[in-house]
C-alpha cells in the first residue's frame, strides 16, 4: 500500500477511449499511477474542483501531473488548463496539453496560459520518459523529483 502512494499520480484527460487506454499504458510503463477522465468536467471533479468543492472536505487523490487532450467536446483542454491555473488550490499542478494538430497559435495560447508543455499526438514512450521531470512529486522532501531518461 505504501508503494502505491510513492508513485507519481497522473491524471489523463481525453474524450477518446483508445487514447485514454494508450496513455494510461504509457504512464504505467513509466512507473506512474494513472487516473483517466473522459472530459474536462470529470477531470475537475477528480481534482477536487467539482460542484461541491466548497462543502467536500476530501479534496480527492493528490495529482502530480495533468495530461489533457486539446480537442474535446464541451470543455476543451485549453478551458481545463485555464480553470486549473485560475484555481488557488490546484494551479501548481503542471499541465501538459496534447494535440493531434500542429497549430502554432494553439501552442502559443496554451503555453501562455501556463501549460508546461504542448506535445503532438500520438505520444511515444520517449515523450513520457521526458515528462517525468515535470511531475511535482513530493515524498518527504519538498521539491521536484527529476528522473533521467
Amino acid at each position: 500500500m505504501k508503494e502505491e502512494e510513492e508513485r507519481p499520480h497522473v491524471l489523463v484527460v481525453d474524450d477518446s477511449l483508445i487514447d485514454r487506454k494508450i496513455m494510461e499504458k504509457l504512464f504505467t510503463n513509466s512507473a506512474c499511477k494513472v487516473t483517466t477522465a473522459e472530459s474536462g468536467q470529470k477531470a475537475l471533479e477528480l481534482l477536487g474542483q467539482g460542484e461541491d468543492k466548497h462543502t467536500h472536505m476530501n479534496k480527492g487523490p493528490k495529482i502530480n501531473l495533468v495530461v489533457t487532450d486539446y480537442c474535446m467536446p464541451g470543455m476543451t483542454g485549453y478551458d481545463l488548463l485555464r480553470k486549473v491555473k485560475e484555481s488557488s488550490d490546484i494551479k501548481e499542478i503542471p499541465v501538459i496539453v496534447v494535440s493531434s494538430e500542429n497549430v502554432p497559435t494553439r501552442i502559443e495560447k496554451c503555453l501562455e496560459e501556463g501549460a508546461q508543455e504542448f506535445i503532438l499526438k500520438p505520444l511515444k514512450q520517449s515523450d513520457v520518459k521526458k515528462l517525468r521531470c515535470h511531475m511535482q512529486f513530493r515524498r518527504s522532501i519538498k521539491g521536484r523529483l527529476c528522473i533521467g531518461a
Partner: protein
Amino acid sequence: MASVTQLQRQFIEYTTSLYKEGYLDDQFTQLQKLQDESNPDFVVEVVSLFFEDSEKLLNNLATALQQKVVDYKQVDSHVHQFKGSSSSIGAQRVTNMCVHFRNFCEEKNLEGCLQCLQQAKHEYILVRNKLEALFRLEQQILQAGGSIPMME
C-alpha cells in the same frame, strides 16, 4: 502443419509488407512495445476498440451525409475522431484518407465527402482484414509453442 520457424518467418514477412505498403506506421510498433506480461493482450484490446469505434463512425458519417441539409461541422467532427483513432493505432492509410476527407468538409463539397467516405471505408476494411490476419498468425505461433518475433 507449418513449423514454428515457418510461421515466424511468415509473420516477419507479413508484418514487413504491411509497413512497406503503408498500411501500418511506427505508431503500431509503439503499441507493440507497450505490450508486456502484465498486459499480454494490449495490442489486440486497443485494436478491437479501434474496430468498434470505426464502425460506429462510418455509420454516423453515412447518416450525416444523407441528411437533406448536411451539417459539415458534424461530419468534420466525426472525421476528426476517425483520424485521431486511426493515427493512434498506426493505421496510416486510413489517417491519410481522413486528411483528404476533412478538406472536402471544409469546402462543403458533398460529392468529395461521399467519395472520401467510400475510400475511408475501403481502407478501414483492408487494414482490419490485415490486422486480423496478423493476429491469427500470432495465435498460431503461440499455439505451436513459439514466441512472436520482435519487429524493429
